[in-house]
């Protein structure tokens, strides 16, 4: 196995996870469960394809993708914060909605039930190993930037406060709802960028192209103990396992299905606390009365 190709492939697989997990971390640290990462990624991928297709510019596609994620993130925020709907139910509804909406509009816009036409993308210079794609850099920076915001800025302190002790935060004048709205909106845009990367990297949208990546990102958030940098490490680790599986194809030492299970099994083990318990933010999921 060639180490350079192993590293670059791992990185390429990790980028969507890095975006989505960062989105998951900020929403969950504010106290909102984000089971909808999968749907946000899918929406981002589709909006980016639409934007790129009609403008010819991948940058417009990036903006469209962010916009799509923002809309779905805001739906999630309004439903759970304003209407106090159950966060788990809303997350699942958004995932279903995203599948339905992208399929419906795929049919409407491109008269296809499987994929869009080819669209422009970034980079493509083989010698650059993917580093000529600005989204790769953004994905790599997402977690450190988020960590800086969460731990080094007043707004980050507020996010963490409303996720742990909303009443205490409210008593010192923090608007709990406003902080959560912003956190969920940012989460929508970040997760959508994961989908944007996928669509532009593959130069098209295909039906359900996120294929469970949003759930791996959730696994990374939990395995990373709701910390941006640790979640990012989990993303890289999961991506490395996947790369190993791809590069070992044909070499049936371990069936691929068992390698697929790794992120999910590790998450359960982390939650059960066999090696240091994963403890969620105290107010996670508690926006209902």
């Amino acid at each position, binding site marked *: 196995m060639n180490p350079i190709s192993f590293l670059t492939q791992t990185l390429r697989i990790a980028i969507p996870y890095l975006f989505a997990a960062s989105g998951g971390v900020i929403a969950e640290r504010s106290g909102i469960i984000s089971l909808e990462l999968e749907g946000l990624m899918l929406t981002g991928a589709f909006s980016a394809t639409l934007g790129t297709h009609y403008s010819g510019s991948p940058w417009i596609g990036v903006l469209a993708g962010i916009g799509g994620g923002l809309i779905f993130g805001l739906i999630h925020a309004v439903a759970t914060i304003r209407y106090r709907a159950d966060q788990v139910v809303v997350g699942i509804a958004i995932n279903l909605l995203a599948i*339905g909406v992208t399929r419906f509009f795929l049919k409407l816009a491109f008269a296809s039930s499987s994929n869009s036409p080819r669209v422009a993308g970034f980079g493509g210079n083989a010698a650059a190993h993917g580093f000529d794609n600005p989204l790769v850099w953004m994905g790599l920076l997402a977690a450190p930037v988020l960590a800086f915001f969460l731990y080094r800025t007043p707004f980050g302190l507020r996010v963490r406060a409303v996720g742990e002790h909303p009443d205490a935060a409210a008593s010192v004048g923090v608007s709990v709802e406003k902080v959560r709205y912003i956190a969920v909106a940012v989460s929508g845009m970040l997760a959508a960028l994961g989908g944007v990367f996928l669509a532009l990297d593959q130069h098209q949208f295909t039906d359900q192209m996120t294929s469970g990546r949003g759930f791996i990102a959730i696994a990374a958030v939990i395995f990373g103990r709701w910390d941006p940098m640790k979640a990012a490490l989990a993303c890289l680790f999961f991506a490395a396992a996947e790369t190993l599986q791809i590069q070992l194809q044909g070499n049936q030492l371990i069936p691929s299905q068992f390698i697929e*299970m790794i992120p999910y099994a590790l998450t359960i083990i982390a939650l*059960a606390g066999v090696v240091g318990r994963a403890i969620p933010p105290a107010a996670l999921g508690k926006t209902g009365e």
Partner: protein
Amino acid sequence: MSSRTREQLEEALFPPLVALLVALICGDLLIMSYGQSPATVYRLLLEGTWGNAYGFGQVLYKATTLTFTGLAVSLGIRAGLFNVGAESQLAAGGFLAGVVGLGLSPAVPGLIAVPLCLIAAALGGGAVGALPGWLKVRFGAHEVIVTIMLNFIVLALLNWIVAAHLHVPETLHTPEIRTGSVPRLESVISAFHGSAANFTILIALTTAAFVWFYLFRSRRGFELRAVGLQPDAAEYGGVSVGGVWFRAMTVSGMIAGLGGVNYVLGYKHYYEEGFAGGSGFLGIAVALVGRNHPVGVVLAALFFATLSQGGLAIHAFVPKQMVEVLQGVVILAVAMSVPEVRAVLRRARKPVAA
């Protein structure tokens, strides 16, 4: 009807009605975005489902699976637990039913083989449900995340078993069962000819009756609902909350597992990769719209089955994906209107000069 019952009924019925209205409006917009007339498309949707025997048979078939998964999810919610694992419990149940049907000698009569397959299905689903129940009670691991992760693990495991050991070459399914098939409805009512509807529907209705009895007429069910409403108070009242949680997850998984019988014993007669096809997730919608009551669950299962079959009926005019959008809209609208409706009704009922 006592005023208390009426109030409960109002709180239960308003959110689904609001959701239906919202879904109709969204449907109108989607249909018009495709340049079609909503009236025509809705008429086609009804004609293709409740308007002819084949379509109705397909609705009954789809509603059967959804009744099982809806009951499974609602039983969990009654205990204060969210079972997002119905999808893999359904698959595990169908798989084990198929394996038993495959392993038994063809000489074993259906009257013995079918119950054995049912037990296998319940055990398969029950095992997948029991694990998150145990992890929650023993380690406090949140059942939502554990069941989501288990979905992927169990489905991957089943895929591996089928691919490595059990599949018919060039397919993703196991060989046909040798005994234990459940007859189709068409064998009695010939009008259902060609539809997948089968007698598993009676098992589904029996299960609904069982869940009703268990929840509302048995001591264990009373404990379960008490834990769902107020775990601390229930514990103080002498109920073992952990025991209830473990039992609820196990029974929930068993019910979802039984649902696999509809496809494996009643329709295709083999286990196939991906046969669950989202029915487990839709069970969450069914439980939510059915307001976690067995009667509501059966009605909601019919509603979602009608939508899903109706999508095929309108496909020539509007892409069938429209119904997937509407499913999401209905779930979202019910989830958003439940707390709101409760607040509005309670405000309206409050005596003016309290």
